[in-house]
């Protein structure tokens, strides 16, 4: 091999077809952030239509959909809501949490050199690309994206004639989702094996930081739930392409298409879909909960309150998460008797969620809180998760959900948990681990400005949606205002749209801060936050193989503020007395 081909090859294997978990993590981080931008723009288009229905969108309208003369058509609106949710869920929140943070942090936080299966890891990233391409391409197939909602309920999603968005774009959508499923399965097997097999000496399960616990339990959820979605999506594909009719009833037909003999059941899809997608909502929150737990302990300079109850709560949420999927189907035509079981399990899942909130508050109680950017986002997470969790209880009640199901109340709920909580957790994690990833720190001033604006405008966007929901405004309506019931809701929708635009604009601060700090940020050492967990003892950024010494773990991750220790933190790798006396040692009577 000549020198230049070797260096090209070297560059390709280091940065493109990389097998190092840190590079793969960053690849996921950058890809998902780009998609975040796309998903955000789609949201703005939705909000535009709800605030100024059928009016030409200034500037971007003619550019993006000149075909419609810069105006959003009803079929394009259904594509917008479908694509927005698809991008945000499958291309942003899930991969950024499990794959970007998961890849970057798992080996570092447990003291491993890399993932157990580096090649599989690489493949899991490159499996995302067929998905990116398929769904990306569907944006160019009229009506510019699939139109059956991210839930893709048949027969709408199967009968090609039923709506413009059910044509080729829907086929591409299903192919994309199946690829995402395969990618995530490959990832999850890897995370599980790595965590079980490759922990550094002394890193017992009960010394793992909550971030790793969150990612570990999430990987279990993915490993068990994703096969169902992937198989379900393939079945929907064969329904469309080969006429298998898994989800089509007898004589299914739409828009005067010839009736097909289905012999299947539309509800089957809903069961399969939610069997995955309810665990998926926890896939989108458990890693963030873990990261936030670590960040709150670090910046309260105090041990995490109730470590073991926190671990237990994570496991309980995951376990119950598999038996609550029917709460999305209370009005679906599923037997109402079955609804009772799902309602009981759903209120039960609120219990461990509440325990988590109480423990975060307990961690801050009596601490010395430092309001750094990661901490602010972490507290923002708690504040908004409370709202999302509480609205969940209202919806868990079957008779009440009958009224608010498929209204803006649901939209308010899941945006509080997904934007208010999960996304705030992602920002917290980004500010927190940025120094480890790039050896430089993001600007604290701009980080705080970003937080203040984001927190205010997100609440301004999503809180009033509860009221729209109480007024029963349906979701996925291109124009609700021709109903007497919803005619008066335009001003409030305008207010929401203005807040949403402001939220979007505030993210420019983050983008500039993020990109600028990669090159110009303040250089920092190994442990800029005086944190205990293992990754902070590695170089910033860590080289190939991660540690320049063999990490040995001596204690749990949360020994902050010990009065018997000279410093207010006590890293896991630091030799010394295993457990300094502490007033309330849960650890002591466990072994």
């Amino acid at each position, binding site marked *: 091999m000549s020198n230049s081909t070797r260096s090209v090859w070297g560059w390709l294997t280091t940065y493109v077809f990389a097998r190092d978990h840190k590079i793969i993590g960053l690849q996921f981080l950058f890809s998902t952030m780009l998609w975040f931008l796309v998903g955000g723009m789609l949201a703005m288009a939705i909000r535009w239509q709800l605030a100024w229905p059928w009016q030409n969108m200034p500037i971007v309208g003619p550019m993006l959909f000149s075909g419609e003369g810069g105006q959003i058509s009803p079929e394009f609106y259904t594509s917008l809501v479908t694509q927005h949710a698809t991008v945000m869920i499958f291309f942003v929140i899930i991969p950024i949490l499990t794959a970007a943070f998961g890849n970057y942090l798992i080996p570092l936080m447990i003291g491993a050199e890399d993932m157990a299966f580096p090649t599989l890891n690489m493949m899991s990233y490159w499996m995302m690309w067929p998905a990116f391409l398929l769904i990306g391409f569907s944006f160019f197939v009229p009506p510019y994206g699939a139109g059956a909602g991210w839930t893709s309920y048949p*027969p709408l999603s199967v*009968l090609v004639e039923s709506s413009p968005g059910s044509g080729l774009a829907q086929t591409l959508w299903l192919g994309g989702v199946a690829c995402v499923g395969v990618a995530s399965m490959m990832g999850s097997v890897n995370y599980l094996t790595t965590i079980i097999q490759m922990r550094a000496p002394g890193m017992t399960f009960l010394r793992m930081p909550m971030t790793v616990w969150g990612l570990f339990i999430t990987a279990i959820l993915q490993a068990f739930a994703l096969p169902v979605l992937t198989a379900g999506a393939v079945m929907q594909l064969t329904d469309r392409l080969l006429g298998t009719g898994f989800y089509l009833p007898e004589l299914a037909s739409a828009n005067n298409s010839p009736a097909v003999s289905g012999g299947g059941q539309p509800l089957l899809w809903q069961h399969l879909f939610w069997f995955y997608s309810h665990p998926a909502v926890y896939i989108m929150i458990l890693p963030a909960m873990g990261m936030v737990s670590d960040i709150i302990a670090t910046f309260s300079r105090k041990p995490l309150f*109730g470590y073991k109850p926190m671990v237990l709560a994570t496991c309980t949420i995951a376990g119950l998460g598999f038996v609550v999927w029917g709460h999305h189907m209370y009005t679906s035509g599923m037997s109402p008797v079955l609804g009772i079981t799902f309602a009981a399990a759903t209120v039960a899942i609120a219990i461990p969620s509440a325990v988590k909130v109480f423990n975060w508050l307990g961690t801050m109680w009596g601490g010395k*809180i430092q309001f750094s950017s990661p901490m602010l986002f972490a507290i923002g997470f708690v504040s908004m998760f409370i709202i999302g969790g509480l609205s969940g209880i209202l919806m*868990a009640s079957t008779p009440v959900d009958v009224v608010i*199901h*498929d209204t803006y109340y649901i939209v308010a709920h899941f945006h509080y948990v997904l934007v208010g909580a999960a996304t705030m957790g992602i920002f917290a994690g980004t500010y927190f681990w940025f120094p480890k990833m790039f050896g430089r720190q993001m600007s604290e001033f701009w980080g705080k400005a970003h937080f203040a604006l984001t927190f*205010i405008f997100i609440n301004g966007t999503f809180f009033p949606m509860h009221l729209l929901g109480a007024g029963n405004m349906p979701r996925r309506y291109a124009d609700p205002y021709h109903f007497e019931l919803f005619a008066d809701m335009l001003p409030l929708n305008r207010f929401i749209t203005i807040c949403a635009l402001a939220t979007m604009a505030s993210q420019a601060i983050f983008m500039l801060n993020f990109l600028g700090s990669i090159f110009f940020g303040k250089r920092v050492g190994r442990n800029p936050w005086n944190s205990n967990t293992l990754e902070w003892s590695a170089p910033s950024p860590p080289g190939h193989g991660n540690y320049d010494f063999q990490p040995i773990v001596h204690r749990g991750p949360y020994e902050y503020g010990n009065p018997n220790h000279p410093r207010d933190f006590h890293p896991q790798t630091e030799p010394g007395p295993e457990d300094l006396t502490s*007033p309330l040692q849960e650890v002591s009577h466990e072994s």
Partner: protein
Amino acid sequence: MGRFWSLLFLSVPVLGTLCYLAGMLTRSGPLALWFPENVNSMANEVDQLHDLILALIGIVFVATGLVLFWFTWKYDASVNDQPVRFVHGSHKLEFWWTAIPAVILIGLAIYQLKVWSDVKIRRPMLAGLDGQMDTADDQPMPPQFEVVARQFEWRFRYAGEDQLLDTVDDILGDVNELHVPVGEIQVGSLKAADVLHSFFIPALRLKSDIVPGSQQIVWFRADKPGSYEIVCAELCGWGHYKMKGRLVVETKDEYQLYLQSLRAKQYQRDFSQPSVAQVYERDSGETGGSGPLGTNLSLAGGAQ
């Protein structure tokens, strides 16, 4: 700066509560940012249950919000000169803050069962041959009307004199307009001709998805005459947002007159209208052969 952040977090429970109170005030006003008036006396308890749960979660929302504010205010590193409280947790606290929510939540799950069974499980019954209610031979009340949802409209059919659907004397209703007598228990049968739809009448607290290939049963008793909107609440294609219908609640006499006028119209109906025919053609296929009316219509459709 710590002060600023604590106050920012305090603004959430404060503004949140105000926002909700403002919404509640619109309850009877012209602005509709709250549940519309409920006219279904069989679902009164739904609103009560909602208010009860809302009060409970409202209390928790405000309480946790205040605690969050207080902790960020008091334990701000720049003002708190106390040493850090070095604790890893508390078994006692963990027990109580698991047990108390558990008792409340499970209590709630049990308490709501009755409401759920009233609105979705216990279908209204008619006395059987013995003429007495609450005996073993009670019959489920047959539907007085049928809804066929299709992209993007609602079609209705009434049972006619014999009180049974799928018989010769069925009456075809107007598109997008359902009439029911005030103060009487009504049972409806829902069907879909193409994709999923959801039959949602906010004023009745009634929502039921309609699944092609199967039939849903709903019931209610509208106690206040008037006209109320029917909303489609399940994404059904590009025109989902247009799928608006109207429920007219009127006196028994008005209702009978309306049915008579429909019947009169029916015998003058122009059978070459394709859409009507198609609905019934498909429909008779689904139910495995319906009354002569359906057959006639499908013949008309076929000939056309």
